[in-house]
């Protein structure tokens, strides 16, 4: 089983995407989708170091929902900040966040989270991955931002990937 399906999560994701893109659902499409789902991970396996197992699916689902909610909330905040920019300029600045995450896949997920949430831009990662430089759109309490950022996003990722 392990030999036939080394990347079960990636394979099932690819199969789902193939079937969604190729509606209607027919046996032929299922066969092609299975070919893609089983073959593609093998072909590209040499490009990336293998990911460790992802633990805690519940934490992952909660993290995804939390990011979705944060996107909506901060998009509204940034939009409001833009409309009001003439009257008072948003206090944008760089924040240095100390990191405990080291796993590269977890860091890639953290990059996705910061980039998808409007109002934070991933700017730099220390060479030893010990700190991260973020640009924040509008910030008044830096210490509070850092603690809540770590608690909301970094700790769940640590649970999932490490």
């Amino acid at each position, binding site marked *: 089983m392990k030999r036939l399906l080394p990347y079960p999560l990636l394979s099932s994701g690819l199969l789902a*995407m193939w079937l*969604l*893109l190729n*509606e209607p659902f027919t046996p032929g499409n299922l066969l092609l989708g299975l070919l893609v789902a089983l073959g593609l991970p093998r072909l590209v396996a040499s490009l990336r170091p293998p990911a460790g197992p992802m633990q805690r699916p519940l934490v992952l689902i909660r993290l995804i929902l939390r990011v979705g909610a944060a*996107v*909506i909330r901060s*998009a*509204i905040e*940034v*939009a409001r900040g*833009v*409309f009001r*920019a*003439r009257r008072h*300029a*948003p206090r*944008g600045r*760089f924040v*240095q966040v100390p990191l405990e995450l080291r796993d590269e896949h977890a860091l890639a997920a953290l*990059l*996705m989270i*910061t*980039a*998808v*949430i*409007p*109002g*934070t*831009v*991933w*700017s*730099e*990662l*220390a*060479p*030893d*991955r*010990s*700190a*991260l*430089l973020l*640009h924040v*759109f509008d910030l008044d309490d830096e210490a509070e931002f850092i603690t809540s950022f770590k608690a909301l996003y970094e700790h769940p990722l640590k649970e999932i990937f490490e």
Partner: protein
Amino acid sequence: MISVWEPLVALSLVASGVVVLAAGLGLYRLPDFFQRMHAPALASTLAAWLVTLGSIVYLSWRSNELYLHGWLIIIVLSITAPISSAVLARAALFRRRQAGDPLPPPLLAQEDPQPPPPNDSPTEAADR
């Protein structure tokens, strides 16, 4: 025929338009490059989500079957958009530091037991 879905579709399209307007206005109005980087994120997240929601509702209602391709737009966008945003931010930091703008200094290795490989300048090694 007006269904309950029609106002929902209209609302999500108009809301998405407002969000894209905010994104464009932000690009125009905000004073600094790093500030401006936040504005397009609005268009690629909330605005794209709203259009997708509208099209999923509209097409499912019209064809009487669940239309889910739309989710792929959101997923693929949230995989690709971070790459360009991270690369732009890195390039801007690099160039503005070279120009001597007041920016935070490059992050260096800190408390970690293994030192980074020698011969690497901090700016080059920073994104490994």
